[in-house]
């Protein structure tokens, strides 16, 4: 009799546990699918209630992730120029946008090791727009308007893996001092 009571108790506990697992199966055993990628691009949900301030002025704004690490940062950089910096939870990608100390704006998209794979900026005394594609810190392609010629003709240049330069359209002055003799 004692044995059957113990058996009944075990059966009852197992039954409760199975019922619990059935109810929570989606949380305990999530299926992969595409839910992650959809949620990654989704904006945060709106709060149900909010009190709206007409204006907020700050010296620095940090938006924190679930682990309290900084995911978005708006602030004045060391050289006294403003910038926005944002990263993902795993710190494998970075977006930076801002204005350099010399007034030139920039937009930078990088991987976790800050090896830029795309960069848009305004460069040179003529404020020429350029788009730079880099990999592993090496420039592989540049599209833009000339920084050295008065009429700012377009150029498109690519670099091979061993650093050979090929002008596809126009001419790109890739000297750091932007002084080129043709």
């Amino acid at each position, binding site marked *: 009799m004692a044995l059957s009571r113990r058996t009944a108790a075990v059966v009852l506990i197992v039954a409760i546990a199975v019922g619990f697992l059935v109810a929570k199966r989606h949380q305990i055993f999530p299926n992969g699918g595409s839910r992650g990628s959809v949620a990654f691009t989704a904006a945060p949900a709106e709060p149900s209630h909010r009190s709206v301030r007409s204006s907020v002025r700050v010296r620095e704004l940090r938006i924190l992730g679930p682990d309290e690490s900084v995911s978005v940062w708006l602030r004045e950089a060391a050289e006294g*120029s403003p910038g926005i910096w944002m990263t993902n939870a795993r710190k494998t990608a970075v977006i930076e*946008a801002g204005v350099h100390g010399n007034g030139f704006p920039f937009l930078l998209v990088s991987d976790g090791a800050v090896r830029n794979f795309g960069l848009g900026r305004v460069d040179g005394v003529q404020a020429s727009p350029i788009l730079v594609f880099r990999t592993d810190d090496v420039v592989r392609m540049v599209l833009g308007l000339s920084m050295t010629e008065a009429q700012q003709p377009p150029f498109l240049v690519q670099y091979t893996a061993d650093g050979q330069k090929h002008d596809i359209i126009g001419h790109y002055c890739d000297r750091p001092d932007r002084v080129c003799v043709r």
Partner: protein
Amino acid sequence: MIIGYAVAEHLPWPSASVEARSGLAPQGDVLSTHTLEVVGADGRRQIVMGTSSEGSPGIWIFDRNGKARLSIGLYGDNNASVVLNDEREQAVQIFRTVGERSAPVLVMKSQGRDRIVMGLNGASQDPFLVLYGVDGAKQSVFGHD
């Protein structure tokens, strides 16, 4: 089993899903405002997040002279844009989407004129690269805008 199911229905479970983490934050964690300004040590505005004259959201970043040199936001027709400006606030580089199909387009400008336009054509979504001379003469490298 029914008891376990009923208990589970009322018991929260710590989920590690991205949806849960990106969901509704507690009220105290949300700051709502019409305009947010980041100001420098001298009180000068450096970054503004707010609503444009078209009623769409935007972020503007300013240089030392108070000129907007970079803006990120939406146009009135809901297309997205990133714009880099010169010191006179004239656009020189624009990454944006265009039209109802949100075709991606990159525009580079000089003296207010388009000189390079690259992207996908709105109707066919075919790629194109078009150059313009200083006199406005158009040269299609491939495709057409």
